[in-house]
């Protein structure tokens, strides 16, 4: 099993019937990718790109229209495989008549874990809910519910963490804490599949990224490959109309032509510097939307 990928998605397609039987909506179309052992893979895309649909297919919550998904070579529905997964759903919620400690105890029992209250206290402390262990979840904010979700996902020391927008409702400090926990879990040996809108998070912690748009795979590769394919340069010129400095980012291949053109137009070039390519640039290029 060691050489089998934790997640392997082959030609996944998912259609949903429209309301009143008026045909179908293609949510995901022919998507293939994998998550290898020990990787942190970022899964990025616009709203409605098909990220959550893909994750729910991976977890067996949605039936596949076409394609195949295997987790460590087995079926997602296999209970032994499911025990190895920790999952943070998008906008998680819990029955608000319980406290975090009650929830963790019950989830532990359902998962057949042998931990005691002390272990769950440590876990709550780790996710920043130490002072809230006996507070009803009904009093929790969105961010606290997400921390709760993280605690439940980490409870079984999973081999695979699947996270759907885990840092969406969090403040910058909480996001940093989340990132640190994800990295710690990865160092422990867990593979991580992280769906996120926050590209800086993905860029910071992920080894690879899978970019989805309109239900189709637009790009996939390691961060080095995605960010390092070509260099970008930033040229600063003085605008003839306003007299203010204006920046322009262009690929290396176009650099000389652009400088020549600016000189022909007698536009004063203030500086030319290498611009670090961000995941946002890659994402916008891959999904066909330019920030300009």
């Amino acid at each position: 099993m060691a050489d089998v990928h934790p997640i392997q998605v082959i030609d996944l397609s998912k259609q949903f019937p429209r309301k009143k039987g008026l045909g179908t909506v293609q949510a995901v179309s022919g998507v293939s990718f994998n998550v290898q052992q020990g990787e942190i893979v970022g899964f990025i895309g616009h709203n409605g790109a098909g990220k959550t649909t893909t994750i729910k297919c991976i977890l067996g919550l949605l039936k596949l229209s076409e394609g195949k998904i295997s987790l460590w070579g087995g079926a997602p529905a296999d209970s032994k495989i499911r025990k190895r997964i920790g999952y943070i759903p998008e906008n998680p919620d819990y029955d608000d008549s319980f406290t975090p400690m009650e929830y963790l105890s019950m989830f532990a029992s359902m998962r057949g874990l042998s931990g005691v209250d002390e272990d769950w206290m440590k876990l709550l402390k780790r996710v920043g809910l130490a002072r809230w262990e006996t507070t009803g979840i009904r009093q929790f904010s969105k961010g606290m519910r997400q921390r709760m979700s993280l605690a439940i996902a980490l409870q079984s020391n999973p081999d695979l963490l699947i996270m759907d927008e885990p840092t969406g409702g969090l403040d910058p400090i909480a996001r940093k804490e989340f990132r640190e926990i994800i990295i710690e879990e990865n160092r422990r040996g867990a593979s991580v599949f992280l769906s996120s809108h926050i590209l800086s998070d993905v860029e910071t912690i992920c080894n690879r990224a899978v970019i989805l748009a309109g239900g189709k795979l637009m790009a996939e590769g390691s961060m080095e490959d995605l960010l390092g394919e070509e260099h970008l340069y930033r040229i600063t010129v003085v605008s003839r109309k306003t007299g203010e400095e204006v920046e322009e980012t262009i690929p290396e291949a176009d650099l000389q032509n652009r400088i020549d053109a600016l000189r022909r137009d007698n536009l004063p070039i203030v500086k030319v510097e290498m611009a670090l390519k961000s995941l946002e640039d890659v994402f916008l290029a891959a999904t066909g939307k330019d920030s300009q």
Partner: protein
Amino acid sequence: MKAVFTFSLMTLRMLFRKRTLWGILLVILLALAGIAAVPSFDVSNQGRFVLDFGLFGIEVGALLLALGLAANLYPRDRETRTLMPLIAVPLSRWQYLLGRFFGAALIQAAALLVTCLGLMLILLFHKLPIPGDLLPATLLIIVEGWFLLSTVFFFSFFTSPPLNWPLTTMLFIVSQMSVSEFVGILPSAPGLMRAVRMLLPHADVFHIKDPIAHGFEIEPVYFLIAIFYGLCYSAFMLSVALAVFRGRDLK
């Protein structure tokens, strides 16, 4: 099965903390107290009257509890997304369904036993004898309640709670009808109506309030057969509910 057991307890605790349970229980107990307060014609009739209507009240209570406790369980779990963390990892769909069912069934049984106790207190208050078959009769109503609960679960996987209530109530009413009464709904197709009635549940097997009120003894084997029938029908309804649930996409 440990996961089912734990989830049943979780469901039980959740339902115990909701106001719905206590509201319905209060309504049933008030209705029972109201029945006892109705003046009777003579002393020998009063016991019969209180028992007959009291057991009927408990039976309607079983329906109200089934609907009140379970009609909104799955739809609410989906709407509030509490379903996702449960189904995605620790529980299979059958474990979720059985856990929710057993949790609700236990609390429903406890609530019906409380109403039976209430009826006993009313009988004692009026210095009326408590028949020995009152507890077994309540047990049969509990089994009927479980059947109704499984029906509510079945409907909840493809209807909304406002539709679940009339559908379950309709099945409850039909299940009380004799074959001749049912054929009377559509007399032009007696064969078809007979066949349909045979397939539909026969909740009349759970009703022994008349013989009890009139002081007749019930054979123990009757209780066993009625309980077996009720449990089999509940299992059948849950199996169909599971088949529907398994075919559902959890968007």
